[in-house]
Each structure stands twice: as structure tokens, then as C-alpha cells.
């Protein structure tokens, strides 16, 4: 259930998808949090890859 203003981001190393609409509540990231606002040292919760490994997901 994402609204038009939010995006999904995919880690191109492991395929983990961050859905801005859903956030990552279990990691303290509330729904609606923009990927761009993550700190630069943020890493993929699945594989530990750098933030730069993520790209906007097109479905």
C-alpha cells in the first residue's frame, strides 16, 4: 500500500527492497521515511552493503 509520492528502493547486491511507504519499523524507521534521508553510513539490513548499492525500483 504505497501512495504515489513514495518509492521503493532495491539493493542491487541482495535484492532487499526498502518500501518508503512501509518504512522499517523493526529497525526504528517509521512508515513514510524517505530513503534519501538515511545517513550515508546506513547499510542494507539484509546484506550489509552500502547505501550506494540501492537504486530506485521500477516494477
Amino acid at each position, binding site marked *: 500500500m504505497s501512495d504515489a509520492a513514495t518509492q521503493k528502493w532495491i539493493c*542491487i*547486491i541482495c*535484492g532487499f527492497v526498502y518500501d518508503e511507504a512501509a518504512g522499517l519499523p523493526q529497525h526504528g524507521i517509521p512508515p513514510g521515511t524517505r530513503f534519501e534521508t538515511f545517513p550515508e553510513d546506513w547499510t542494507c539490513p*539484509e*546484506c*550489509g552493503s552500502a547505501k550506494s*548499492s540501492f537504486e530506485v525500483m521500477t516494477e
Partner: protein
Amino acid sequence: MSAAAKLDDRLEIDLGIFNPMAPEFIRDPGETWRRLVLEYPVAFHRDMGMWVVSSHELCLKMMMDLRFSPNFRHWEYAPPEKTEAEKDDYDITMDHSLFTVSPQQHLRLRKLTMPAFARHVMSKINERIRGLIVDCFEAIGAPDEFDAYATIAANLPARAIARMVGVPPEDEIIFIKFSNSVVKATRINLSPEERAEAQHDSLEGYAYLRRAIAERRARPFPSDDFLAALVTAGEADDRLGDWDILAVVMALIAAGADTAVDLHTYVLQGLLSHPEQYRLLQERPALQENAIIEALRQGSPGKLPIFRFATDDIEFGGQTIRKGQAILVNLAAAWRDPQKWQDPDKLDITRNLEGHIVFGAGPHFCIGTYLVRAQGGIMLEEFIRRFPHAELARGDGDLAYDYEHHNARRIVRLNVRTNVGAAIRHAA
């Protein structure tokens, strides 16, 4: 050993502390791993001629550090680079390998191939391998006992990848030989002669796959197998070449063929030797993926899991690792690190596994992770459906290991008592 290395005041271990080929270690590695993790988290193994990194924290740190390369060619004892004229298909594919190319090129390859590997496309792959797994269980039938290694673990993984890639059943034998040989060809714990033999053995498979790729390219319409997906993968004008595709298939094999043999045996051994956990999984099937990862973590099948090679002199964990030296990233020990996991030797399928490194971490995170999870998941579903009252025969399933296996604590016998007849009598 170089004179420079001798000058280093380094922490050293030897085969008396860690002998990965010793039968007693292979049968019961827990104490050795615990000692490595707590007393020698990074130490030079003077008998093996390489560093061994064993704690969770340092294994994770090393996998995230690009100065430690998976590229075998950075090794101080790597064979000399061949000229272009001397290279065979194996060598050329290695030039394009995910372990060999630059970090930028590696990201490009992972990006272009992601559509074929991501979790959200695994449902298609599930269907492709489900039939294979069901056939495997149909062949087992409903005996009183069967050997889960011979019937499931040795039977499924390479064939599952063959099926995924699009290799027809009649050609599976070529693919399985190819799969075994490409894994062995870069293992630094094997002799140069063994590596050369494995490389030679792989050539028939390369020729086969090159023909298969050409055939996919010639088709007027793309088909839905993995090779065809890779042929058409790309963005704008950026497409994968034949060698890139072969490199990706090679990575898939390295990640998901031989290693998945241990996935099947260790998951079944873990669950059946903890009957309360096996029952719990039947009551709560949503725990399946967690159960698979936890059984791998706790069973920890690795013997010599993965290697890295220092591309410079690097201070690491209080030690100085010299350029060109090899490092065993001892993930098997790290998975049981008591500093990371409470009761690390305990199997608990409800365990919070956040931060686990069962599939590695960082840029070279296991490319086949969702494939092997899917394969393990379908296998478990079928196993539980058919044998809900199964137990290990005679306590330990007549457990036997291949003590000579080059990188795994390979289980080669795991007899399962199905109790199918008992269940039917009970129901009556």
C-alpha cells in the same frame, strides 16, 4: 614464509590448535571454534600458511573491506598470469568473474543480473524447481528408512541449478561435472595439479554453455529460462556479453551447487535431532525461512569456508596482514561466536537472527541466497508433508562424513526413519 612476515610480532596458530581436516574436528568442531573465536580471532596459521579470521565481528569487517579481495590472482602464490593466446574458456570467464572484476564492474554485473536473482522473482524459480523436488520425493516413496544424503542432498542442488539455467535433463550430467570442476578450480587448499585438472574438466561444460547461449541469442522470441533472461538482461545499450553470462552462471554454481548439498543434510539433521523444534516448525510453518538459516548457523557445515587476499599491507584486528597473503574467513566459527549469539550451540528456530552472516555480507553477499532458501524451503515442505513423524535412525542417523571433502564438513550418510507405518497404525 617471507622474511618480512617473520619480523612481524604476530599471533600464530598451528594444526595443533586448528586442523580443519582432522576427523575429530569434523565430527565435533565446537570447542575448536570457540577457542579460535575467543583466543585467536585473527591469527596466522603457520602450517596452512594463511591468516584465519574467526570472530563474527572481524569476519563481518573483513567482508565489508574492499582491500580484502576474493580475487585469487592477488594471492602471493597465484600461478602467473597467462597470455591471451594461452587462455582457455575457463581463464577468460575468470577474467569476467564477479570475484575478479573491479568493484564498479562488479556492481554493474550484479545490477544487470539482479532481475534473475531477486526475492520477488523467486516464485518463478520455485515453480521451476518444485517439480524436480517433488519427483525426488516420489522416487523415495514411503520406505521405513532412507538415506537423506543419497536421495535428497546429493541429488538435488546441481540439478536444481541446471533446471533453473535451462539445461535439459538429458544434459544434466555435463552440467554436474562442470559444476563440480569450476568450484574446485580456484580452491587454494588444493594442489596446483588438482586445480589444473579441475580447470581442464570444466572445459566441456563451457563449450556446452557457449552453444546454449548462442542458441538463446538466435531465438526470435526470448524464452523464460535463466540463460535467456541473462541474454536479454540490460539497461539501455548495456547488455551482458557471453563471458559475463558464463561468469554469472559460474557464480551461481559456486554459490548454490555444492554448498546446497550441506544445506539439505544440515537442515534435516538439525531439525530431526531436535524433535521439539521439528514439531514446532510443523505447528508454525511461517518459521520455515528462519529455521533454515538457524539450522545452517547452528550446524555450521563449513570447514574452509571462504578466502580473501590482501591487496596491500593492512592493519587488521591488531595484526599486520601483508599484501598477497591469503586469509581464511572462518564463517563456520563466526556463526557460533558466543559474543554474537546467546547459547550459540543451541538450535532455536525462533531465534532473532538479525545481523547474521550465514550468507556472507557486503558486496559479495551470496548471489544464490534466495535460490538456496527456496530450494531448502520446498524440500522442507515436502519432507514435513510426507514424513511428519520422521526421526534420525538409531539416534544419529548413522551419521558419516567425507573427511576428505575440500571445504565442507560434508555429511555423506544421514539415515532417516520415516515412521510412516507407525503413523498409519496410530491413525487407524
